[in-house]
């Protein structure tokens, strides 16, 4: 019995060691660094909560916070909603596999490549977006240098990439819904919208919880596509918290302040995810 227990611990030891070495120790170290003023070269100077108090005085931090909220809201609005919409209609049409593939392809491209593709598409002089606008008689726009248009332009690029993922997850959910309740609705004379609103959507609740939770976490941590497309600019207007954390730590070498942003971001993500999952699971309906 003791030997069995010991071998169980031995089996989880490698994974546990990885978590401790690569997650818990760096996280603890980041907490310590967040209480210091340090350029990464000299000796760190302990300043207590100084970095955290600086948040309210730093307009770049406040802009990043606002942008992060915009990313979260619009990612949920666009990426999740469109994913559901596409999945619902693709599930019912003849060329389903073709459309599934079309929407899924962008997901196979890395975020950096997605950023580069849209960077070229948004080019003010040679990009396809402005070329099309001009062909239709509209003036072109500086998609990535106009504030706040640049943030929405990047959210759209991100939606293009991620909608396929959400579609696939919703499709899995849709295909597990039994046909009887839907057919019963039709016999009772329910409209398409009523069937979706009162039968299909409630039965997708678990899947929706997963998709929304994933989108929440991903949009809070959004970094790579912004880094490639605007580098947080112009004048730090399109930074999110993750980009600010990177810039403060690894470009400006304000290690303490960067660490404080990282801690703030982690706490916010954990808190929002916990509240969301707790509230959703409270209302869970079992059929």
């Amino acid at each position, binding site marked *: 019995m003791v030997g069995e227990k010991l071998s169980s611990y031995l089996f989880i030891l490698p994974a546990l060691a990885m978590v401790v070495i690569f997650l818990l120790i760096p996280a603890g170290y980041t907490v310590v660094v967040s209480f210091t003023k340090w*350029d990464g070269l*000299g000796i760190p100077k302990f300043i207590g909560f100084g970095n955290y108090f600086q948040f309210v005085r730093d307009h770049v931090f406040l802009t990043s916070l606002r942008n992060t909220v915009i990313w979260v809201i619009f990612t949920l609005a666009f990426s999740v909603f469109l994913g559901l919409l596409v999945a619902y209609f693709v599930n019912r049409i003849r060329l389903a596999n073709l459309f599934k593939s079309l929407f899924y392809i962008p997901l196979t491209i890395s975020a950096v490549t997605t950023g580069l593709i849209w960077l070229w598409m948004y*080019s003010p*002089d*040679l990009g396809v977006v402005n070329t099309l606008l001009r062909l239709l008689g509209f003036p072109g726009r*500086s998609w990535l240098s106009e504030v706040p248009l640049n943030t929405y332009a990047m959210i759209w690029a991100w939606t293009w990439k991620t909608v396929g993922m959400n579609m696939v997850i919703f499709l899995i959910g849709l295909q597990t819904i039994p046909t009887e309740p839907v057919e019963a609705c039709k016999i009772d004379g329910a409209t398409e919208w009523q069937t979706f609103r009162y039968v299909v959507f409630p039965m997708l609740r678990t899947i929706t919880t997963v998709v929304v939770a994933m989108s929440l976490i991903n949009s809070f941590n959004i970094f790579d596509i912004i880094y490639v497309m605007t580098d947080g*600019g*112009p*004048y730090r207007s399109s930074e999110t918290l993750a980009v600010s954390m990177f810039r403060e730590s690894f470009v400006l070498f304000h290690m303490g302040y960067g660490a404080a942003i990282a801690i703030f971001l982690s706490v916010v993500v954990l808190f929002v995810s916990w509240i969301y999952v707790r509230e959703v699971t409270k209302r869970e309906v079992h059929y």
Partner: protein
Amino acid sequence: MKKLWWLVVVVTLGVFALQFQLWAQEIVLMHDKGGAPDWQTPFTEMAKICAEELGIEFTPTPFPTTDVFMSAVRTALPTGKAPELFTWWSDFRMKPLVDTGLVEDVTALWEKHKDEYDPAFRDAFEFDGKVYGVPTKLAYWVVYYSIPVFKKFGLEEPKTWEEFIKICDVLKANGVVPLGSTVQGRWPTFIYFEDLMIRTNPDVYIDLMVGKAKYTDEPVKKVFALWKEMIEKGYFSDPATDIFADYPRLMAQGKAGMILIGNWYEGQLIQMGLKVGEDVGAFILPSIDPKVGKVIIYEAAPMLLGKNAPGKEKALQIADWWMSPETQYKWCKLMGFVPSNKKTSTDFLSVPMQNVVKQVAQENYRLINRFWEATPTDICEEAVDKFAEFILNPGKMDQILEDLQKVADTYWSSH
């Protein structure tokens, strides 16, 4: 079977030990240009030449991005695994490394080669009378222009500021973008500020860089007013234009006329199929105030030596070899750089750049370090964002100048 197993273990350990020994002896050259621009291929070529000529091997190690590279170097420097050699930036960009005593003093090498280098160039690597880097790059900032576009509108290289402005007006009137400018990538926003500044008052520019003048001073305000006028007249490209990927294409298509940039931009032009000398020419921007004399922005980049590096002695030998006119010729030819060693021939440069180098030497141009390195990094990083804000909102000029001065005041009050 058991013997065979032990044999495998012993051989494996032996291979690892040998590998560790090799790693321990390896002279490493870290750099951040493994992609575009590519310095890895020329560095590899130089490593081969070094092995042949000096009998010392070094391994160029590229990093995917500048941020990752800087973090890696700063992390490694205080340790016993500091890189023997690594590329860096001059002046205030290297000062934090010098201040913490993590880079090797190479003053003796500069003394040995003192007849071969311009003192202005040495200044960029010198702190408190000691020099801390050997040259990897010297670039002059010039105006590249489309020869077919100039021919089409009967334009010639300008000799005065008034002639230059007239060219901008002619191009603008004919639907051609006169000058390339961008806020993309952040750093290029300082280009026009520094060049307008040194052409109206170079001494104030130098004072401004070291906190002896203010952004709210009249000469700086005048430069911003001129820059604002140029923006409002539509002399510049769309601020979101990618000046590396798109602007050379616009020049090739005859839609853009000129761009003010470092001469390393020739690589970009060549990549787009343009021939420097045939399709593209180069000139030094004339001074706005003729009393200023002849001035030009230069960009100097050093290779530094890690003080704690295990192979420091060999690195010093490589550094000495690197500074010689012969090695500089080989390196600059591979890279298309202006040789920083005065005894190195420039015959490999494009004809327009050969003319620029000759002009700088013969007409005794005053060399002034570019903004990116000449002012403290903390100020520079915030300033390039403020310049971007100005480019996009020139009407906010006074507020932006006050903001810039606040940034400078904050820095200089604690340094």
